[in-house]
């Protein structure tokens, strides 16, 4: 907690890594003691399987183009386990296909953020001096922007496809990764083993890749999982406001928006996608917390 403001959690990330600080890692022996890790990881694997594999194995009704004759069926209807929405599309199918969008965006955005942001952060720390200060000020500017606003504006400009959402959210995600990577790299850059590598004539990129990166990787991965929760929320928020995946294309955000229209008559249409979204975010947050406890990551 003693970190000074310039090193502390980035303001654009609502859930700073700090909050995940649990009591120091308990006994590490036995699977019972790893349940904090296995449960959220298991939930995520199940969700991923359900979204990407289940529709291939088991024939689901299509997520769009349902018949109006089947409109507004309640939960548990034959053939439509979770019922149908007001135009007759199967909710279960829309949830799973919508989940694909969420997870694809999540993996793509955090992948881009990790690689590009990590590179910028490590490079800034490695070059130090004026280059580092300049890069950090530019990142300050990007981070000072409310994330949802910058994402909405970019998606508004680019269009409403999945790839456009990915680029818009990557713009939000890269600076935060760069900041974490830089603060991690600054912490190790003057440690003896890095200095020794440098003095022994190791090239800059080699020092960074072989000595600095492995040391900050746990921190970056924990942050990536934590940020993944935020990306899922942002993607849903963008779609909810109608800037994301355009209806009738399925996404959790626009399912919730559609549920909002009929919430007084059919609250299930609002509640079901909200619960799935919440479960996903909780799983990502608890996983990140467990990883932190395990690797003893400091902010």
């Amino acid at each position, binding site marked *: *907690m*003693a*970190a*000074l*403001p*310039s*090193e*502390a*959690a*980035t*303001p*654009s*990330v*609502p*859930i*700073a890594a*700090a*909050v995940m*600080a*649990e*009591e120091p890692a308990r006994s590490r022996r036995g699977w019972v003691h790893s349940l904090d890790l296995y449960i959220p990881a298991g939930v995520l694997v199940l969700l991923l399987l359900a979204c990407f594999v289940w529709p291939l194995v088991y024939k689901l009704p299509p997520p769009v183009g349902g018949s109006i004759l089947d409109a507004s069926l309640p939960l548990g209807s034959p053939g439509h386990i979770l019922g149908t929405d007001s135009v007759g599309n199967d909710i279960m199918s829309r949830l799973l296909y919508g989940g694909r969008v969420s997870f694809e965006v999540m993996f793509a955005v955090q992948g881009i953020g990790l690689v590009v942001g990590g590179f910028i952060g490590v490079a800034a720390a490695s070059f130090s001096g004026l280059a580092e*200060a300049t890069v950090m*000020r*530019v990142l*300050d*500017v*990007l*981070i*000072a*922007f*409310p*994330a*949802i*606003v*910058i994402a*909405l*504006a*970019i998606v*508004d*400009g680019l269009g409403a496809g999945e790839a456009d959402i990915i680029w818009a959210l990557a713009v939000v995600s890269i600076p935060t990764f760069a900041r974490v990577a830089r603060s991690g790299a600054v912490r190790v850059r003057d440690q003896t083993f890095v200095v020794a590598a440098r003095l022994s004539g190791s090239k800059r990129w080699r020092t960074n890749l072989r000595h600095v990166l492995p040391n900050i990787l746990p921190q970056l991965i924990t942050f990536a999982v934590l940020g993944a*929760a935020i990306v899922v*929320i942002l993607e*849903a*928020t963008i779609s*909810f*406001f109608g800037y994301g995946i355009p209806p009738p294309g399925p996404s959790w955000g626009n399912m*919730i928006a559609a*549920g*909002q229209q009929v*919430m*007084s008559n059919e*609250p299930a249409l*609002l509640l079901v996608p*909200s619960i799935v*979204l*919440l479960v996903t*975010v*909780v799983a990502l*947050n*608890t996983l990140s917390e467990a990883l932190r406890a395990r690797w003893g990551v400091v902010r």
Partner: protein
Amino acid sequence: MSASAVVPTSAAPEHPQEDEGLRWRTALASSPTVRLAGRRILIAIPVMWGVTFLSAILMNLLPGDAASALLGANATPLEVHQLSIKLHLNEPFLLRYWHWLVGVLHGNLGASLQNGQSVGQILGQHLPITLELVVLSSIVMLVISVPLALLCARRPGGILDRITMVLSMGFLSVPQFVLGLLFVLVFAVIWRVFPALGYTSITQSLGENLRDMTLPALTIALPSAGFYVRLLRADLLEQMQSEDYVVTARAKGLGTWHILTRHAFRNSLIGFITILGLNVATLFAYTVIVEEIFGLPGIGYQLLTGIGNRDAPLVQGIVLVFAGVVVLANLITDVLYGVIDPRIRYGRAAL
């Protein structure tokens, strides 16, 4: 970074016979808190400029312009062209930005392209609503999170602690717009206790105003409270486990609750306030979402409308205010940090 700190530290040595003003200034210049604040302000200037420039670039890159957005799809190219000339949209981007910047430095934020209303006026009308929302939700958030964190840290692993840990994880994970809708469903549709939409001005009726603000404020406050309970609890526990002063206090025979509230909490407060200040930007981002959901006419709502209408002066003005508030919050945090903990003031203030 440290080179930009130009406030002289080794100012003229103090002579008792020198005039009052100079002595005062010398004292001020050598005060570490003031130096810290000055350094922060100097760093903030380029950041604030960068934020406005970036938003100007962003608005310029968006396809379509204000003229066609205002006239709608049925406008003829000639009409669009005429309006563009009237709104100076045909001028080069950098020139427009330059005019805007010069205006801002003279205290003139320009006029909204949408209706010609001055941006300063729009901010004056809508900013108070957003600020009220931020203040109310911050109060709720602090009232929930601080006592709860102290109670949890008193008996870690106890019943209250476990319940709080589970609930706080749930609340910090729930997206704002989902929580807002759930509140509307429960308190406006099923129980009809609070209105789902609408806003009553504070001057019309304070009671109605607070009624309208309750759900929006809770929507912002509860997820943040979940976040801060965990933050503060974890830090309190760390203090209680590892710090020498806690051992001393225990050896004196002080009770756990006394040590927590009088010793550990004071130490945790420093980090707590820092994170609180850093997250002010997030708080404002949440108001954009919440105002949209509850139909509150704050500046977040104006911002989304402005982006939709390609209203560059309005968007830049609002972004400038956001950035200014964030910079101000961070400044206050830094200064408070130094005020609370003298070690920081004298020691590593350079960071």
